[in-house]
């Protein structure tokens, strides 16, 4: 097990190194440079000022030289400065990372709980009315655009019913736990609903297949109650393929919550990476994307470890 983890961590570092090169190169190939944004909004910036700023930000150097400088500094623990924020990249990233982790973890847990419940219920009576209803809801969840869902939630629960705040993290001057929870309900629900549909379909399919296996028949024949058969004997086996899907979606959730973050004014990693790419903030975009890569790799490692926990026959 230890060798497996060490080997995978080594592979992770290698992937991050390759990704840093690829991402830096790709961002560099995009049209324009960071100062174009500045010039576009400031017709008063003279050519002398622009040339001076290019030197200051190192934009007069070839792309690969800039990458080499960044990599050398990164290996010494310095991930560089964000040009647009004039702050160390980690200082800029930390609050966004926290916001994203909060949204991502809660919505992930909520969607997993919902998907497990709905998927199991659906699998117990495939083709029944409850299965059809859950399948319909799951497909709706998969199909509905997150943007539209978020907007509808705001219109219904904030504008019409005034039950929940439309956006933000907390009310200025309040900040109590209840206030924070009220602000989180809609973004979490939006993200969770968007994921629950897909997860439910995977849980259902996997459970239907597992419930047909010999060991389930044996468990029933031994007189185990249906609840124990389903939740202990079947679910554990059914979770193995489902875990792969969930692990992959974890990374997507990390960097892909852009719309939810923007709609509910909860600026996180998705928005930060998007803005950094648009404003050609090389260091910030690079480190943000590397974080997203790292989370995806680590979540897949966690999934591999979970396989062994779920099925002791699996050797890592």
């Amino acid at each position: 097990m230890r060798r497996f983890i060490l080997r995978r961590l080594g592979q992770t570092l290698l992937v991050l190194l390759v990704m840093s090169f690829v991402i830096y190169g790709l961002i560099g190939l995009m049209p324009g440079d960071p100062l174009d944004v500045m010039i576009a909004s400031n017709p008063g910036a003279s050519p002398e000022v622009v040339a001076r700023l290019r030197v200051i930000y190192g934009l007069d150097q070839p792309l690969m030289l800039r990458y080499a400088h960044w990599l050398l500094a990164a290996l010494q623990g310095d991930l560089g400065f964000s040009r647009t924020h004039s702050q160390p990249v980690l200082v800029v990233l930390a609050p966004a990372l926290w916001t994203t982790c909060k949204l991502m973890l809660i919505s992930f847990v909520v969607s997993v709980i919902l998907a497990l419940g709905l998927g199991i219920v659906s699998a117990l009576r495939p083709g029944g009315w409850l299965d059809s209803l859950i399948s319909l809801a799951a497909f709706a969840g998969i199909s509905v655009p997150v943007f539209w869902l978020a907007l509808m939630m705001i219109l219904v629960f904030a504008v019409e019913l005034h039950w929940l705040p439309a956006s933000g993290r907390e009310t200025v001057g309040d900040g109590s736990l209840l206030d924070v929870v009220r602000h989180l309900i809609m973004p979490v629900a939006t993200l969770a609903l968007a994921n629950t549909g897909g997860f439910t379909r995977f849980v259902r399919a996997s459970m239907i297949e597992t419930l047909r296996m010999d060991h389930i028949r044996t468990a029933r024949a031994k007189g185990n109650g249906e609840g124990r058969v389903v939740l202990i004997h079947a679910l554990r086996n059914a979770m193995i393929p489902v875990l792969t899907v969930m692990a992959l979606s974890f990374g997507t959730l990390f960097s892909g919550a852009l719309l939810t973050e923007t709609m509910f004014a909860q600026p996180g990693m998705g928005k930060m990476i998007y803005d950094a790419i648009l404003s050609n903030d090389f260091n910030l975009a690079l480190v943000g994307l590397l974080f997203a890569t790292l989370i995806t790799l680590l979540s897949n490692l966690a999934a591999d470890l979970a396989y062994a926990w779920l099925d002791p026959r699996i050797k890592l």
Partner: protein
Amino acid sequence: MRPPFAVRLAAPIMALCLWSGPSHAGPPSGPHDQLTIGLSSFPSQFHPDSDPEAVKSYLEGFALRPVTAFDVGWHNTCLMCTTLPVLDTDDVRIEERPPGLPGMAITWHLRPDLKWGDGAPVTARDIAFTAMVGRDPKSGFANTRSWGKVESVEVIDDQTAVLHLDEVSSTYDQLDTLLPEHLEGQIYAKAGGPGEYLRQSLYNTAPTTPGLWNGPYLPIQIRDGNTVVLEPNPYWAGEPPHLKRIVLRAVENTAALLATLQAGDVDMTPGEGMGLSVDQALTLARTQPNRFDYVFKPALTYDHIDLQLDNPILSDVRMRRALLLAIDRKAMVDRMFDGKFVIADSWVSPLKPEHSDQVAHYAFDPQASRALLAEMGWKPGSDGICVNEEGQRLSIPFAVTAGNKMRELLQQVIQSEWKQVCVESVIHNELPRALFGETLKQRSFQGAVLYSWLFNVTGSPRQIMGSDQIPSEENNYSGTNYAGWRNDTIDQDIKVVETELDAQLRQTAWDEMQHIYAEELPALPLFFRVEVHAIPKWLHGLVPTGHNDYAVLWSEQWRGE
């Protein structure tokens, strides 16, 4: 039976995630003591002289006053000085500089009661320090509006400083925001490499430090990358601010911002390009006319179509006139913008004192347009699109920024109108960074590009019309005269409006430039936008200015009733 692992894991994870730091701001004391403003963007940093961002200027207007600003009547006024420097007085002198060229010496007198937010006085040393940082090539400043031309500063006493300019400048009586020498001085002195100062400045590392600000409000919290809380500055010497708290919150999706406004989570959205889009604001004003006070304020945002003058088809002025005559700008303004936008004849807004009406006007006249095209030898072909004697098709690539709903709609209308006069336009839209970062910058566009410029109240049009501003390898593609227009008279007039102190001579140059622009049409003028402010009915004293010295510079006068 034990619940699934995920369920057992959920409670502690959620408890951990819900934890948040304490909120430092207590509740405001009265129902209309707090104003929450919804913005569609948020500044990336807070140093007043780094990247120019409209939203940063808006936000900092509550807390940091420039020495002078243009008021609601578009008059240059003192905010931190006792009087404006005036020509033919001791405060404004023409002086000879070492190379034998004329310069200027401008004496500024600061108000004696000014204080920074930590109680330290605002003094002439702050002027000297700001000028020193402003002209330091290593500072990383992009905003050199005031300081780039300051060669040296003499500090006479705490309130008096003489600025020596390296040229004669017609904008000698304007001075930007100051930096606190008592806080930033040491940081600047210690900063070594290029750009280091901006990275270490308190504006970026600790922006809620009271001593950085000198306006009626101080930022007491900046959090979540989208919220700023401002409360009154105890050392503010002017009219005491009426509101006890102002909260600025960014909701960067304007559809969500509109819903947030309707839900009452924010009280108002400003115009100035930082609130709702124009179409959203117009719809809101139509559907909920009594919910807010709507202020439609004409602004200096100039929508126009740049043309590639190196394209032989577009280099003929008759073609450019034919294209403009074929656009029904009045119908566009009436139908799409409720008649609120102002049709442009040139880049100079009718609101500006320099505006001239003695220029060519191009009312919608498709017949005149067709006649001009025929005069140039363009005749409608079998599919209705013009061809010339060589069989060349009259086809022009036409770009706007992809994803900008309003511009895409305008583009479609114009495309249809040009087709009516036998001109084919081929839509070739690009993302903003591609359009501005490469296509315009490299002048690789072949036809027409619709976009906008935001102008200051004063300032020369050098950057968009000067022949030295045509982007090229020689100037490192830095200019913004994307059309590539060269006109010697315009170049001379630009020099006059920048350096001539006689107002009448400057106005003559402005008149001549507008006349030539309207005759030559290096770009097709469309209109000047109107900003829509949705203001709560209980808020009084907020008067939008329509220019980029925003109403927030007088925010101490805002009051809730």
